[in-house]
């Protein structure tokens, strides 16, 4: 650094430079009398600015505070929004867990019932619980009526569509729901962690005052 560093001297005096720049300035100051003089002048200016303090305000801090507090406008149920927000925030993981538990329970019950039906435990009641899939029968009947019967390809397509519907309805659907619930829970956890870190940083900032 060969040129003068006068533009950095204010920040140097205020302790606002990072270590690298500070070292550069100090190295330059060791060699440059002009910049040392400028730094000295800045120090004297700061001293002069602080040489005299204004008279204390006409009223004491206690009286000032009392006057301010008396003038504070009435707060209209300020507590509710914050408390309500807090209750809602901390209820989120509870609701997510309940939803997940509900899904698991419903899935378990469906498995048990299906197995029972397959084992013939429900007898004729199973016809009422699990009616034939009318829309598929109607569709194949309609196609048969229109086309004089289904071709092999059409039949294979219908079966494939039927299987796909079964997969989507009974496997993929619950899976996606659980993934969404999991993501929501992790999202809430990330939000809580971010707030916690922010509060911790603020405590640290306060400690630096």
């Amino acid at each position, binding site marked *: 650094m060969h040129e003068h560093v006068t533009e950095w001297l204010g920040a140097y005096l205020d302790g606002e430079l990072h270590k690298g720049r500070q070292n550069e300035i100090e190295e330059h100051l060791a060699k440059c009398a002009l910049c040392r003089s400028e730094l000295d002048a800045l120090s004297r200016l700061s001293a002069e600015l602080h040489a005299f303090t204004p008279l204390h305000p006409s009223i004491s801090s206690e009286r000032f505070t009392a006057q301010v507090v008396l003038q504070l406008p009435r707060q209209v149920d300020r*507590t509710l929004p914050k408390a309500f927000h807090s209750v809602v925030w901390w209820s989120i993981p509870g609701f997510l867990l309940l939803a997940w538990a509900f899904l698991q329970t419903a899935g378990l019950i469906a498995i048990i019932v299906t197995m029972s039906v397959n084992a013939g435990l429900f007898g004729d009641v199973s016809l009422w619980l699990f009616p034939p899939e009318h829309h598929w029968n109607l569709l194949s009947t309609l196609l048969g009526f229109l086309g004089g019967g289904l071709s092999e390809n059409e039949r294979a397509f219908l079966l494939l569509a039927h299987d796909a519907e079964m997969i989507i309805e009974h496997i993929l659907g619950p899976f996606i729901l659980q993934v969404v619930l999991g993501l929501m829970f992790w999202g809430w956890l990330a939000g809580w962690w971010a707030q916690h870190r922010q509060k911790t940083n603020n405590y640290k900032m306060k400690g630096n005052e």
Partner: protein
Amino acid sequence: MVDYDLLTLDEIQLINKAQQGDRNAFGTLVYKYHLGVVNVVYRICGDLDLAEDTAQDAFIRAWQKLPNYQPRAPFRSWLYRIAVNIAIDILRRQQPSELLEEQYCANEDNPETLVAEQEQAAQVQRAILTLPQASRVVLVLREYEGLSYQEIANVLDIPLGTVMSRLNYARACLRNLLGVFAQSLEVEHA
């Protein structure tokens, strides 16, 4: 009105209480920052009585905006931002009033020294008042309230580089006005 027990309470807790409507907690914050806010406004506007009235307005406005305060920045920076904005509004509406030398305290033992020091203090404040508003505010926040450059940037919502350049400009102006010059350069040329 001021609960001195609350003075030891963590500031974050005070703010939380005040945000929930606790006037005592807010009063504690007022007590803590009263002199700082008055000082900032006074240095910007040059009138102590006006500064006290403005400081009251600043605290009342802070109370009204307190539900919106998020602890991303120090409370002091947020409060000073409100006070500076009010002070700037006042400057736009009126000229800085004549300074009263009596506003300055000094060596009370010697009346002659008292007068001289009061005059000198008034000269310093007059010099500050001649600065452009933007530079004046930055100088006041740095020199009289000790805010860091980043805090000043947050208060005024300006870049860090702008803080530095305005501060350099303010100091250069004040050095000329107050006659604070670098030592002779004869040493360099010797």
